[in-house]
């Protein structure tokens, strides 16, 4: 009877979600697997980058931090490029990806995920309208420059810019002043919304009472702080790479005898030094909260502490204390604090910071599933490297790389319409 049953259901094609990448140790309940894998690590990581990039740009627009002027415009456009990518990991992760929109149709508001559609769309509207106000004058200028040009590409761009102005061609001083005011207001509203967007990503984890590692009221705040850290770090890093790239391509062009090329200064150490101060501030806040959480768990030593301790200080020791805290937090901290900062040193510090925040997400998402709900066994996650089917692509290394690469492709495209680096 059993055999017929399997054949009837085509058992040879059956894919048990989680079975491919989970190994179990000691006693776990039969249905326990690593259900939330690499894409759910990517999800808070990417939303964090979006929120952080936006907060960085708002520091200039709202609080008038003049030292951030150069990087503010860039980080605003970059946060737009990151925006659609915050949804990608979820889409990759869903067992029924085509039903993803159900969250919009029948949001079930007792669920933390149900608010995603609303918070996310609100945030998208704010980012888009802020960019529009920042670039409106530029759009109008472009329309005037391109008017009457005959080339197909110019015609296309001409019409594109006309559409982008939304019919608002007024560039009088009064109108521009209004634009600036709108940007300031939007950036002001944007900060709490960006923090909410990410804080609630933390809430998704922090409110799961069944999970001993996740359940903590500090989780949303920890997520916001590390989000801002990673967002600032990624903006700085991309800024350095692009500016240095421009500098070197100019130098190479000059070397080839092209005398028309202007020399470009490359990334400005001044901008980088000042931005890294904000980075350090948020980094300290993030580490403080994380350590507070850890100490509190150890001190109160609830029922779950035995297994949590064996995971944190035993199985995940390298991931948590070496890769996350030492390499991802302590090393960049020292690198940024040693006097006589150089672009190269900042560059390496930023890579460590980004890696550290990624490891934090990893240790929360994967670490939270490293032990059984029975507290009597462990589970290990083996990330699929070589995809053997759609599932192991989506929830494996290449799926994660696809998600990580998309914002840069989008930024390259968006930057063609709203140049965020040359335009000062």
């Amino acid at each position, binding site marked *: 009877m*059993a055999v017929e049953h399997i054949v009837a*259901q085509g058992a040879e094609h059956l894919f048990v979600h989680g079975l491919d990448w989970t190994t179990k140790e000691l006693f776990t309940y039969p249905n326990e697997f690593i259900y939330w894998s690499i894409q759910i690590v990517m999800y808070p990581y990417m939303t964090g980058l979006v929120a952080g990039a936006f907060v960085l740009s708002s520091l200039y627009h709202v609080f008038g931090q003049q030292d951030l002027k150069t990087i503010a415009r860039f980080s605003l456009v970059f946060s737009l490029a990151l925006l659609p990518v915050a949804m990608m990991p979820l889409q990759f992760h869903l*067992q*029924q990806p085509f039903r993803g929109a159900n*969250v919009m149709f029948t949001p079930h508001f007792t*669920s933390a995920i149900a608010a995603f559609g609303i918070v996310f769309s609100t945030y998208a509207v704010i980012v888009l309208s802020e960019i529009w106000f920042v670039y409106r004058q530029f759009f109008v200028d472009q329309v005037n420059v391109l008017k009457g040009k005959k080339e197909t590409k110019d015609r296309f761009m001409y019409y594109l810019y006309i559409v982008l102005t939304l019919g608002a061609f007024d560039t009088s001083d009064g109108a521009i002043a209004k634009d600036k005011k709108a940007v300031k207001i939007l950036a002001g509203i944007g900060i709490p919304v960006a923090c909410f967007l990410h804080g609630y990503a933390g809430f998704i984890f922090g409110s799961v*009472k069944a999970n001993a590692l996740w359940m903590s009221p500090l989780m949303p705040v920890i997520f916001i702080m590390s989000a801002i850290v990673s967002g600032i770090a990624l903006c700085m890093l991309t800024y350095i790479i692009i500016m240095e790239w421009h500098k070197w391509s100019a130098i190479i062009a000059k070397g080839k005898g092209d005398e028309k090329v202007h020399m470009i200064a490359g990334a400005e150490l001044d901008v980088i030094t000042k931005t890294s101060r904000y980075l350090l501030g948020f980094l300290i806040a993030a580490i403080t909260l994380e350590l507070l959480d850890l100490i509190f768990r150890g001190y109160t030593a609830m029922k779950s502490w035995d297994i949590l301790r064996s995971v944190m200080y035993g199985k995940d020791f390298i991931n948590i204390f070496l890769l996350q805290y030492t390499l991802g937090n302590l090393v960049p901290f020292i690198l940024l604090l040693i006097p006589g900062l150089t672009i190269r040193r900042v560059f390496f510090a930023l890579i460590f910071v980004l890696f550290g925040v990624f490891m934090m997400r990893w240790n929360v998402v994967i670490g939270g599933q490293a032990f059984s709900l029975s507290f009597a066994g462990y589970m290990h996650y083996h990330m699929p490297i070589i995809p053997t089917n759609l599932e192991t692509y989506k929830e494996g290394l290449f799926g994660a790389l696809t998600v990580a690469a998309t914002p840069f492709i989008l930024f390259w495209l968006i930057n063609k319409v709203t140049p965020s680096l040359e335009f000062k």
Partner: protein
Amino acid sequence: MSCSRRDLLKNTFKATLASALPLSAFKMLSPAQVKASVGDSNVRWVFLVNTKKCVGCGLCVKACKLENEVPYDPPITRTWVERYVVMKNGQTHIDSPMGGRDGFTDSKIRENEIPADEIAKGFFVPKLCNQCEKPACVQVCPVGATYQTKDGVVLVDRTWCIGCGYCIMACPYGVRFFHPVYKVAEKCTFCYHRITKGMAPACVQACPFGARQIGNLKDPNDPVAQIILNQRVGILKDEYGTKPQAYYIGLDNNVR
């Protein structure tokens, strides 16, 4: 006819009100709510497990898999049986190979020989969905695809579940999993399709020792309800506040 600003505002207000009133007579219901409102409120399904009667034969797991079309060999199951072996030194060995489907015929636990003279006690504990009064899985579903019926059973709408896995994460008992064929969240329903027609759940029917029973807590004459009300019974993991409705006779403090 002229229309002053005052008139325009007045009429707009009237028209809005007039159209809003009939609309407010309708209540937007999710498919889940509609289904849930059909249930019988004089019934509260509860489960009673007598761990003293369970011998770990696994017939309940077999019956469940066949009845509910849960693929037979993949290691996922709506119900399972755990074996506990407590040693004299206090150490506890627990296992549930294939959810206990094929019985516990091997005295080894995870390839380890357990010295018989060191054993203090040993017993079996069947597990299934607790059909909680305050189900965490229903709370976290972002689309309302999983819902509680009026008679207390938590069901999943296979046509609406998006497969995010949040409910699987939220369940403290680990009873949920993804169905390999339907690709949606799957769980024990107390065999809702059977109990609502007066039949017993497949596992209850298959159990040769009467270790599993189902009953209606709202019926004072129900034998299961009488045991739950009059005798000493335990529940699993009450610290999560989900108010589980599967009761256990002879529950040991080693049970996870």
